[in-house]
């Protein structure tokens, strides 16, 4: 899940999730970056409205609690 955490870190820091930024963060965490995976994650996240996804994500735990 490293690529996802790194992406969310960039997102919550209001930085663009692009290959350079993601690579930087992953390297700083000592993760050996796999370029193909990097590209795949960046491309996939471009297709997604992250804020929307997170909004729904937060609704879920409440569901369990209900």
């Amino acid at each position, binding site marked *: *899940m490293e*690529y*996802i*955490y790194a*992406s*969310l870190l960039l997102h919550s820091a209001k930085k663009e999730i692009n290959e350079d930024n993601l690579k930087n963060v992953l390297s700083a965490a000592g993760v050996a970056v796999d370029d193909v995976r990097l590209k795949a*994650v960046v491309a*996939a*996240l471009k*297709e*997604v409205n*992250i804020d929307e*996804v*997170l909004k*729904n*994500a*937060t609704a*879920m*735990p409440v569901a369990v609690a209900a």
Partner: protein
Amino acid sequence: MAVVTQHKIPKWKIEEVEELTQKLKEYPTIVIANIEGFPADKLHDIRKKLRGKAEIKVTKNSLFELALKKAGLDESKFKPYLTGSNAYIFTNMNPFELHLFLAKFKLKRYAMPGDKADEEVVIPAGDTGMPAGPILSTFGKLKVKTKVQDGKVYVLQDTVIAKPGDPIPPEAAPILQKLGIMPVYIKLSIKVAYEGGVIIPGEQLEINLDEYKDEVMKAHFNAFSLAVEIAYPEPEVLKVTAQKAARNAISLAAEIAYITPETVQAVISKAMTKAYALAGAISGKVDLGIQVPQ
């Protein structure tokens, strides 16, 4: 002769400043705690618990200030806290860690008039060892049932005399003390912490671990949801992604009434939902002879 008050600094003071200076150089974290009215024996307990993790020195503020200067630290940062009686804690832990560590063990003391109970106060059944006498009326006041046996007060059953947060009846204090019951917590009040040039006021050191747990959970949940959304190829994630894809397929099949054994339930449910919605829309006007669930 009075002229000789040209202060000859006592040797112990010089040594103490020396020792403090040494510690200031040795340890990255310095914590100043208020020990005004803090029982000496409890401070001793803390010292024992911190052994190997931190050192506590109780000293004069002026000596500490001198040591700060000698250690080359900016004493002006500490100045506002150098009043009253203080204990100085030196440690390699970061200030928050030390604070969490101190919060972990509970120090208790005897109740004094005006105290509130930090935990349930129970007078246990059994022989109190107290000779019968005027104390019996105190037990009576506290609604503790007693009898006298062999000239001693004997409590008949466990009796709660205060719940957490309740004021402890002042007359109970001597009894609790005789019974060795300490219902009041004390903790070292930290005024300020210092590490690596950063001053952190004591009230900022409070950490709610549950909040952190919630945040970790939420962060992970966000990550998991996002991973599901982009079909991040890990089994745990794809399990949910596949479920979502299947659910999408069933919803779509239901929408176009595409019937297969997997979808028939969804298709019929959908038709039903629509039928009941329509029935509901006209149920006020027409007797359909059915119960429309609202």
